[in-house]
């Protein structure tokens, strides 16, 4: 039996350690450990509830927007505050822009090189690669000339021995099975994605004033002034600019990103059977459509034990069963306390003990839903939508299934999505859905403004007594909730239950492991020195451990070690 420690897992946001025990080439035990402490909740205590979102954006270095949104929604929930439709649409467009950016970066720049062998690209037949790419997508950036240019760049890098950031890839690993032509296609899109992650940031910046750390939020709405007769405010020019950026961005999402994940699934069909893990799924409703926040464009719900027919919808953010079901357990986390506690009463007092696999071994608490671990993220989002009969989810999911089938005739259904590859597919399906919704929400905003509504803010009024609220957001990595207790307009407690906390959850007081840990059980490991299969499954969750911390390393070198014992 071999024990493999990967510390840190690279190409993620933040620092994560994964330990697995491998017996006969198969993982039979796993531990996920976040090696950074997130203490922002303590900083928020005593702060004015109206400015909490400014601080909350620093929960994470990359998911800044989502924490800002969840924070204002939590305070608004405590105040039972209506939000003007214009503000809802502006926030929704920002969230869509952020999500598209996040999903593009994850697939191409954080995880594609788990599957794409860059070093084989010099051997590719560029003409054949162009033919393959053009037959699978109508994207115009797949020409032979373009692919030849990319191939020349890679040849130069390889010939010069200047591998740089590609120096530590698992090149030539037996689990890397794409042809040189397919590798060239993917790497071409890897480079093109740089432009489109920039465009998705433009969507956020045009509305939010700046990204990361948008500046336009307010408890009660947004601070975007609307005046069609002013050059300095939201006007038809600004709305036209947004439309132009979206119309540039959307084809890349629908014709490249989705097509690439389908090609990947068709090329690595065994990963539709690996990595299922915890088959309980949680997604929260999002993209609200009215001031009362009663209607949504993305459905929420709960699926237990992988049974899609069992889906229980979460109709809105007032859902009492959801609010009562959430707890966090610190039995195996480096915090004081132990068994489950509701977030409103949650504490974040550190109790570090070093890595002890049978005791405390991570900075991540163990969230539970009615005592069960839950998987969150685009896969939960897509499965809940598909099981609920949500038309847009079904449209893009069935489109993906059709594309996969068109490659080698592989038949894929919704249950196959409960896998490592399913998480990649779900991210692209969700992106395609969001890209379509972006134009719809822009039209809703434009129509509302043209109908004479220029309201973007309802002023909050804080009572002197204690109030509590919870703000939800279906973030790129899944269900996010901020829980606040406020007295005289000041936070007296603040807890964030973040998507990566759900997925990277350690064991709870009953010894039940979390989604990362469970998903690795049964994974093959062909080469213990290069545990690529483990990384593929961990990366499929899009781990984001940053949560407001980063590490200054004493030697100045990035430390990425794989230890085999």
């Amino acid at each position, binding site marked *: 039996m071999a024990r493999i420690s990967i510390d840190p897992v690279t190409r993620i946001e933040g620092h994560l350690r994964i330990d697995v025990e491998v017996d006969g080439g198969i993982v039979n035990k796993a531990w996920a450990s976040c090696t950074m402490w997130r203490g*922002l909740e303590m900083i928020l205590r005593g702060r004015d509830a109206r400015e909490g979102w400014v601080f909350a954006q*620093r929960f994470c270095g990359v998911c800044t927007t989502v924490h800002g949104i969840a924070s204002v929604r939590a305070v608004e929930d405590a105040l039972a505050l209506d939000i003007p439709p214009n503000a809802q649409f502006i926030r929704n467009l920002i969230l869509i822009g952020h999500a598209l950016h996040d999903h593009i970066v994850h697939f191409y720049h954080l995880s594609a090189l788990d599957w794409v062998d860059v070093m084989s690209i010099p051997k590719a037949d560029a003409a054949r690669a162009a033919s393959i790419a053009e037959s699978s997508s109508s994207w115009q950036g797949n020409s032979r000339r373009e692919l030849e240019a990319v191939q020349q760049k890679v040849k130069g890098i390889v010939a010069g021995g200047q591998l740089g950031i590609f120096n530590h890839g698992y090149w030539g690993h037996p689990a890397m099975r794409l042809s040189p032509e397919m590798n060239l296609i993917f790497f071409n899109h890897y480079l093109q994605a*740089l*432009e489109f992650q920039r465009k998705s940031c433009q969507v956020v910046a045009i509305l939010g004033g700046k990204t*990361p*750390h948008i500046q336009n939020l307010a408890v009660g709405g947004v601070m975007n002034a609307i005046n069609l007769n002013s050059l300095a405010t939201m006007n038809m020019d600004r709305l036209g600019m947004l439309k132009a950026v979206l119309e540039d961005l959307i084809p890349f999402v629908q014709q490249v990103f989705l097509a690439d994940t389908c090609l990947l699934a068709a090329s690595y069909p065994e990963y539709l059977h690996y990595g299922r893990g915890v088959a309980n799924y949680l997604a929260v409703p999002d993209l609200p459509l009215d001031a009362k926040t009663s209607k949504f464009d993305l459905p929420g719900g709960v699926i237990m034990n992988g049974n899609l027919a069992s889906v229980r919808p979460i109709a809105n953010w007032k859902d009492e069963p959801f609010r009562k079901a959430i707890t966090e357990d610190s039995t195996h986390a480096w915090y004081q306390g132990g068994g489950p506690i509701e977030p409103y009463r949650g504490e974040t007092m550190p109790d570090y003990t070093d890595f002890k696999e049978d005791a405390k071994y991570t900075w991540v608490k163990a969230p539970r839903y009615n005592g069960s671990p839950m998987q969150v993220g685009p896969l939960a989002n897509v499965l809940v939508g598909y099981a609920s009969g949500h038309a847009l989810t079904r449209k893009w999911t069935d489109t993906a299934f059709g594309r996969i089938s068109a490659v080698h005739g592989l038949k894929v259904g919704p249950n196959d999505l409960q896998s490592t590859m399913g998480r990649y597919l779900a991210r692209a399906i969700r992106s395609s859905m969001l890209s379509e919704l972006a134009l719809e929400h822009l039209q809703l905003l434009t129509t509302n403004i043209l109908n004479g509504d220029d309201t973007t803010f309802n002023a909050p009024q804080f009572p002197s007594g204690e109030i509590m609220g919870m703000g939800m957001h279906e973030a790129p990595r899944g269900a996010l909730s901020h829980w606040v207790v406020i007295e005289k307009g000041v936070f007296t407690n603040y807890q964030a239950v973040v998507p990566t906390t759900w997925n990277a959850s350690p064991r709870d007081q009953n010894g039940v492991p979390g989604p990362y840990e469970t998903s690795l059980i049964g994974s093959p490991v062909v080469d213990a020195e290069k545990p690529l299969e483990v990384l593929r499954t961990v990366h499929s969750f899009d781990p984001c451990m940053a949560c407001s911390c980063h590490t200054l390393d004493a*030697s100045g070198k*990035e430390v990425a070690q794989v230890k085999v014992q």
Partner: protein
Amino acid sequence: MTEMNPIATHPISVIGLGNVFLGDDGFGPLAVETFRSQFMCGPEVEVLDLGTPGLDLAPYLYGRELVIVVDSVHADLPLRAVSVFCEDDFTSSRACLRITGHDPGLWDTLTHLRIADCGPSELIVIGTAPESCIFGDGPSDAMLRLAAEAAESIAQLLSRRGVLCNRRHVAPHPNLWWLPLSSTEDPNLQQVSEE
């Protein structure tokens, strides 16, 4: 593709990197906010506190003529001094041992952009060695003084390249919103804004 091109609006970026809640690690944001309060540039210069964005740095380096990154640098630098690096320093053997806590993001991002032929024409890093990176603390007194020095360095680098950068006659307080509640009246802030 549309003709709208924000690159043309902001060909120059001044970027502060760091975690503002981690003591001196927040030197970058502190320095760019100090620069913003003391100097005024034209529309071609974008001054940004980007926090700790990792690979999400790419959009802010993409196609720029000049990028000035201000960051705390964990290296063999003299304490309580501001140092200036060029991109070559990061590719030389000397700089391999001199990277910031954010460097994996910065280095990866630059490499991606260079391969795609859309990296910045010039990259400069202004850094200083942090003295104390304790969570929840504000920056040390030394960092507050060095932030003013870094702001002067930014202004000089821009001016030498013919970029409009004027000292404000009346400098407002830098917007250091992240300081601990008990530190908001710290006299050192007054000192920085008056220097």
